[in-house]
Every structure is written in C-alpha cells, then in structure tokens.
C-alpha cells in the first residue's frame, strides 16, 4: 500500500502543478509583459542624474482591479528605490515590503533576492504617472515542486542525523539495563499486561521490555525518548523476524500504537503553541487518543486476518 501512496503523491503533485501552471497560462494570471499603471512619488526632488533615489510607489484600487481582473484587490503605496542606468529606469521595492497577490508571487518568482520592475518613460515631476512591467512569470508550481523535493530531501537528512545523539544515549542506557537484569525484571512485571497485544513474541523476551518503555515514554509525552526506545523495540522484534524485509504482526502492532499515539500528556510542541489553553484541551485529547488507539489496535487485529495481509513465512 505504501508503494501506491508514495507513487500517488508524486504523480498527483505533477498533475496538480501542471494543471495550476496551465491555468495560469490560459488566464494569464500574472499579466506577463503587460504594463501596470502606477504613480511614482519622489520623497525629495527628482534628480535626473542620480543613479539611486528613494521613491514611493502608489497603485490605485481601480488600476489594480482593471489590470488583474480581480475585484477584491485593493491598492496601496510601497517604499522603494528608483534605479537609473543607461538601459532604463527600474524600481526596486524596499526589503520586506508586503505586496498583494499576485504581485507577491511575481516578486518571489523573478527577483534574485530583491523585487524589481521596469518603469516606462521619463519622470515628469514629483508625482510621476507611469507604468511598471515585471519580468514574465511562468511555471510557478512546477518550479515549486522541484524546489520542495530538493529541500525536503535535505530536511530528511538533517532530521535523521539529528537523532544520532538521542539514539546513542538511549541505546547505551538500554544496554546497561539489559546487562544489569533490569529489563528482564520489567518484562516479567509487565508482560501479563502487554503480551495479549503481542502474542507472537515469546514469553520473557526483551522486546516486551522495550515496547513497554516506548509506550510509557509516549504516554508521558516524551517524544524525544520515545523514538529511540521504539527503534530499539523494533530491532528486538526484528531478531524474531524470519524474513528480512517484511513486517511481522508484532511490528505492525507496535507501529500502529505509535502512529495512533498513546499519550496522556499532550506533546511538547502543542503545549508550546497553545500555552495555557492546553489545560482546556487535556481531556479532549485524552479521550480522542484513547478512542483512536482502540480503533487502531482493532484495525491491526482485523486487517491481519485478511488474506492479502496475512503473514508469509519463507
């Protein structure tokens, strides 16, 4: 199933991006090469020889609406700089200005770090009625998906390597727990509770201890500890796996209990976002996560009986 979902995500992104870009072509969303009427106001007197001078660009509501054909747009005025060279005059918007769509997209697509457009004609006075032409914008979404693919691939490596510290720490501690007999004690105490969910794991197997630790860390909202413990539990379960690359029943159960998440404490990220409000949500999260855990466990048990998901032993 993961194969289909994965392939589907990639193919669908292409389809959606292409649709959106073709739509932009057809509608000429960005009015490529068409001049947009604007008024340039010089803060100081206009200096014909100065290479750079500050200006304010004003676009009226009616001009913007007429140009882009979107009646909800409102104009405004933005700070910028007039740049005069022998090739002509152009405006550079000040850094950090917020422009309305689709101007914002035009700027982010065409500017190399700055947002600029060519101005027509010669300034006539402190208030200069002219028109601005931006570089043509094409293939916005196609560029976006290519850029996203690359940047997310980099994020993946950062994320994975970021786990090294936590993984090393927990795997070291767990090794001590194993060598000292602590883990075995934990297994003996907790297996009556946990083994019904993992009937295929042999009695007194260390995997049960890792599973208990992983689930406890999840419950307490300790996400950073839960991942290494879960990985360790998977490694223990893999020692019982007769195949090399196929998930076993206990593995699927452990995974689903983790994705359905078994937290009593809300996750740290959510506490950071919601602040004190999290207290109100304590029970709604507890009830929802409890119910979805039960549904997840039931789904694993039932789906595991289907012919296509049945365990294959080589």
């Amino acid at each position: 199933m993961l194969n289909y979902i994965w392939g589907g995500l990639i193919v669908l992104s292409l389809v959606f991006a292409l649709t959106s870009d073709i739509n932009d072509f057809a509608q000429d969303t960005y009015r490529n090469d068409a001049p947009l009427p604007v008024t340039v106001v010089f803060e100081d007197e206009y200096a014909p020889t100065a290479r750079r001078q500050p200006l304010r660009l004003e676009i009226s509501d009616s001009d913007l609406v007429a140009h882009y054909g979107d009646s909800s747009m409102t104009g405004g005025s933005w700070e910028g700089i007039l740049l005069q060279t022998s090739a002509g005059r152009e405006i550079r918007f000040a850094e950090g200005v917020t422009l309305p769509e689709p101007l914002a997209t035009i700027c982010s697509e065409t500017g190399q770090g700055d947002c600029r457009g060519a101005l027509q004609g010669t300034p006539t006075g402190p208030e200069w009625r002219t028109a601005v032409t931006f570089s043509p914008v094409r293939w916005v979404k196609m560029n976006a998906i290519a850029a996203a693919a690359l940047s997310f691939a980099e994020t993946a490596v950062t994320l994975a390597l970021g786990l090294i510290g936590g993984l090393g720490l927990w795997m070291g501690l767990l090794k001590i727990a194993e060598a000292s007999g602590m883990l075995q004690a934990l297994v003996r105490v907790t297996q009556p509770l946990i083994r019904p969910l993992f009937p295929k794991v042999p009695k007194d197997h260390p995997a049960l201890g890792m599973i208990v630790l992983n689930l406890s860390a999840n419950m307490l909202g300790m996400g950073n500890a839960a991942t290494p413990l879960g990985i360790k539990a998977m490694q223990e379960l893999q020692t019982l796996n007769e195949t090399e690359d196929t998930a076993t029943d206990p593995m699927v159960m452990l995974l689903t209990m983790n994705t359905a998440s078994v937290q009593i404490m809300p996750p740290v990220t959510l506490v950071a976002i919601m602040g004190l409000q999290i207290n109100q949500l304590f029970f709604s999260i507890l009830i929802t996560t409890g119910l979805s855990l039960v549904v997840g466990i039931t789904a694993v048990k039932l789906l595991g009986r289907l012919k296509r998901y049945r365990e294959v032993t080589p």
Partner: protein
Amino acid sequence: MNILQVFLDYASALVLPAILVGFPLYGMIRKVRVYEVFVEGAKEGFNVAVMIIPYVIAILFAIGMFRASGAMDFLTDLLRPVVGLIGIPAEVIPMGIVRPLTGSGSVGIILDMINQFGEDSIFVKMAATMFGSTETTFYVIAVYFGAVNIRKTRHAVPAGLIADTFAMLAAVYVVLLLFG
C-alpha cells in the same frame, strides 16, 4: 489543574532524570562495567540514524512535492461537501489531511488558524485536539521500519490511516461535546 494532571506533570519531569541516573546506578550495584557497556550500546545510534536516511528521504520528498503542488487546496475543496454531511466543519479539513503527512506542516496550520479564528475558537480546539491525539504517521513508519530495513509494511499503513481518520472525526465530535 486537576490531580491527574499534576501527577503527570511531576512524573514526566522526574522520569527522565530518574532513568538517566537510575540505570547506570543499578548497573553499578549489579557489578556491570557500566561505561564499557554504555559505549558499546551507544555505537549503534549512529548506524541507525544513517540507516533510516533513505526511508525518511523517500517519504519526506514525496510529501514536500505534494504540499508544494497545491494539492491540499484541491483536496480540501473536494472533501468539503462530503465531510459536511457528517457535521465536520470545512475549516478543520486541512488539518485532517496534513496531520498524518507532516508535523511541521500541521504546526503551521494551527498557527494560521489561531491568526484567522482567534485562539478561543472551536476550530482551533478541534485542530489542536487532532494534533495532540495523533502522530505524523508516514514519518513514524519511515523511521521505525527504516531502522530495521523493513520495506514490506503489510497492514501498517491502512491500520495507521484508519486510526488517523477515526481520530480526526472523534476530535471534532469530542470537542463539540465538551465545548460546543
């Protein structure tokens, strides 16, 4: 704050130090050569992190492309009439779609919703409950199965998605019940 919450607050604050000190201490009592054993175990951390890289790249780049293509907006529009029938407000659909795919994406959605509806809004409560009660399913699959080189995931994906879908619906109804 109720008693359960206070207890959990203390527990989650104390458990970590207790383990960090308790494990080696107990090991020393049982005459384990703690330092040597720790290093031997910790060695594995690096290998595991490197091993999961291809799995996480595969999952994240596909999800990144999907998000960048604007498919979310399309899906939201597509689902709006369907989920409306069972009483799910359209405002929370993006959260329902994004939550199993990306953690950072869902954080962004909650922040947007707080800006748009205000933090006391029932939609924010629903989205936050969705966030708090589920996990980034595809990332968890990549990391947990990647660490042991499992590629054939069997019913893990459908079971995870069933639980996620249920949690999204339950979050809406539970919030309506408690705050509606």
